[in-house]
């Protein structure tokens, strides 16, 4: 018995087939991960029960899932704009950190003695989010400019700029912004500067609504506006787009600014909704995982939103599973990674089918 991949005449595009394949991928990932439970005498059944139950069927847990999904969604939406415009940007981690830094900068200015100390808290939060988004946009815009003007490689430049952002934040929290007598982190922002929690009994903050709103705006821009059409056309084939009268360079600049702005906003929201202070290691790979959720969501806004919530659930549920089973954290991470890998691999099954055949004797 052997199997091979055979190209389908027409790719599977129906929603049900995608759901069915995704569920299958998750189940296979869980089954494979379950084998790793056995040496630790932990029950995979109980583990997965706590993973799914905590992430999606408990009010508080689902709140955490949506909180985790919020920055992933925004980075995912940014990925859609940039990548569909042909700007393969990998610098969301840096934009997120720069946005978080910008947001914190405003918040620290609103503390006693600061220039914004007499400003209404709601206005401070609004300024902070706007400033975070602006700095994120400029950070990505710089990469876009270097690519468009000088033909620089956006992948390399963006990756290197991620390091710049990481070390800039490290410097600030260990140096000038460090809270006296404590770890490398800034002072905690007062409670009236926190984004409000929108569902009682959970930590779901108003930033989630901002993420949803930004998704709607991006969907309208990409699917219903001339700008969106021109961006997508620029990404599909820049030469023919130029031939059609589209100013590809301008559209790519705009895409860079929007993508970076979304990631910067996500960073500022993380500060005001979750951490309430700037600290080292804040982004923890969110800028990259957001790209993965956009890919899992097949570069569509609803798909990315769903993939972000699923990934958020996997992360929150994974923590719960570790607490429940006492497994080493590495096993939980392996299970999470296996599920994501298999989900990405299902893309092949949309265009190919598996064919089993018996070995023929010659």
């Amino acid at each position, binding site marked *: 018995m052997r199997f091979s991949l055979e190209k389908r005449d027409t790719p599977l595009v129906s929603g049900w087939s995608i759901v069915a394949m995704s569920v299958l991928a998750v189940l296979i990932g869980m089954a494979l991960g379950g084998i790793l439970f056995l040496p630790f005498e932990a029950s995979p059944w109980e583990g997965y029960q706590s993973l799914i139950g905590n992430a999606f069927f408990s009010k*508080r847990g689902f709140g*955490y899932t949506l909180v985790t999904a919020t920055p992933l969604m925004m980075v995912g939406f940014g990925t859609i704009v940039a990548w569909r415009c042909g700007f393969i940007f990998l610098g969301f981690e840096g934009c997120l950190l720069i946005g978080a830094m910008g947001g914190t900068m405003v918040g620290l200015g609103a503390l006693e003695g600061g220039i914004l100390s007499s400003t209404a808290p709601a206005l401070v939060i609004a300024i902070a989010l706007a400033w975070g988004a602006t700095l994120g946009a400029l950070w990505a815009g710089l990469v876009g400019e270097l690519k468009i003007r000088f033909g620089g490689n956006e992948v390399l430049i963006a990756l290197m700029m991620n390091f710049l952002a990481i070390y800039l934040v490290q410097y600030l929290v260990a140096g000038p912004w460090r*809270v*006296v*007598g*404590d*770890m490398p*982190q800034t002072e*905690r922002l007062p409670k009236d500067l926190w984004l409000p929690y929108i569902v009682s009994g959970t*930590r779901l903050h108003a930033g989630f609504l901002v993420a949803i709103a930004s998704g709607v705006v991006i969907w309208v821009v990409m699917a219903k506006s001339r700008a969106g059409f021109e961006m997508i056309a620029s990404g599909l084939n820049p030469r023919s787009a130029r031939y059609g009268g589209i100013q590809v360079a301008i559209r790519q600049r705009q895409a860079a600014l929007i993508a970076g702005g979304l990631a910067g906003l996500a960073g500022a929201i993380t500060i005001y909704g*979750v*951490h309430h202070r700037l*600290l*080292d*290691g*804040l*982004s*923890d790979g969110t800028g990259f995982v957001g790209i993965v959720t956009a890919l899992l969501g097949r570069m569509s806004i609803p798909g990315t939103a769903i993939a972000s919530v699923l990934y958020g659930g996997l992360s929150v549920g994974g*923590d*719960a599973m*570790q*607490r*429940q089973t*006492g497994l*080493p*954290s*590495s096993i939980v991470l392996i299970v999470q990674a296996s599920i994501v890998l298999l989900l990405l691999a299902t893309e092949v099954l949309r265009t190919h089918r598996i064919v089993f055949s018996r070995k023929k004797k010659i």
Partner: protein
Amino acid sequence: MSYFKTSKVMLSTAAALMLGTASTANAETTVALVLPGSIADGGWNAGAYQGLQALKADGFDVAFSENVSQADIPAVVQGYADDGYDLVIGHGYQFGSLFAEISEEYPEQAFFATTSAPGNTEIPSNALYVEFRYTDAAYGMGALAALMSDGKAVGVVGGGDNPTTQGMAKAFVEAAEATKDGLKGYAIVTGDYNDAAKGREAASTMIGNGADVIWHTADITGIGAIEGASSQGAKVIGMFAEQTELAPSEMGTSLSANNAGLVQEVAKMVADGSFEGGGMWEPALGFSWLPLYGDTTYNTDLISEDTWAKFLEIWAKVDSGEIEPAS
């Protein structure tokens, strides 16, 4: 508890009643341990995990999270608190200000961080911190090094250049010179916890100046110091964990942090209702720090029974406050 004294305790009566009646039996007490590193690190985190396993054996309902990054710590801690764990233990300096900030939101649960209380915040009555008494411990090791020495000097290799390391270095030197007339105490603060080469170099420098016993207050740098000193024939004293394996025949003893004991003791306080937060718990030196040499306390080939008795006498005086390091 007869062997510890509480200091700066600002316990409110209400909290005492709430915590006192929260649970009285081990089986009803749930304990969560949050670790910044791996349970298999053989040192700081592994010790606390051992304590948690011992609690499990005693019937406590326990859970843990390991390798939790600084950015994830608040979510993980709040996850346990929201799950209703009676005691949440944060193992390390990372939990200092966090517990002071969030414990008020969970007035019926207890929080214990194995670090000093943050200086700039008021500590809620359900958060407890621990004073490891590093300077007192260093004084004890200075005295032991002096008692072990047959030469004209002893030395300590310090890690990160911070007030704690500086204080320990001074206390070591003070104790060494006070314990044996004419003996010289050396201290080199390398400024780095994770540079074995620097530790080796510092130990060699002091041995070159006549030191024959080397102690350290650094992690990886300290391992370098032990290896450097032992390879040159000097006697060594380990620190933080049981380090006999690094130099079995040159090691006098290792002063290991009793993280397992701390975790167990605080859980028992919560179980029997005697938990008192609001400040720093100051356990006896002999509880926080355990001299270990394999399965015993010291290497009888290097330290005579008489010498050990002299050390224990000084150790007890430091513990009771009769001897107070000047630094």
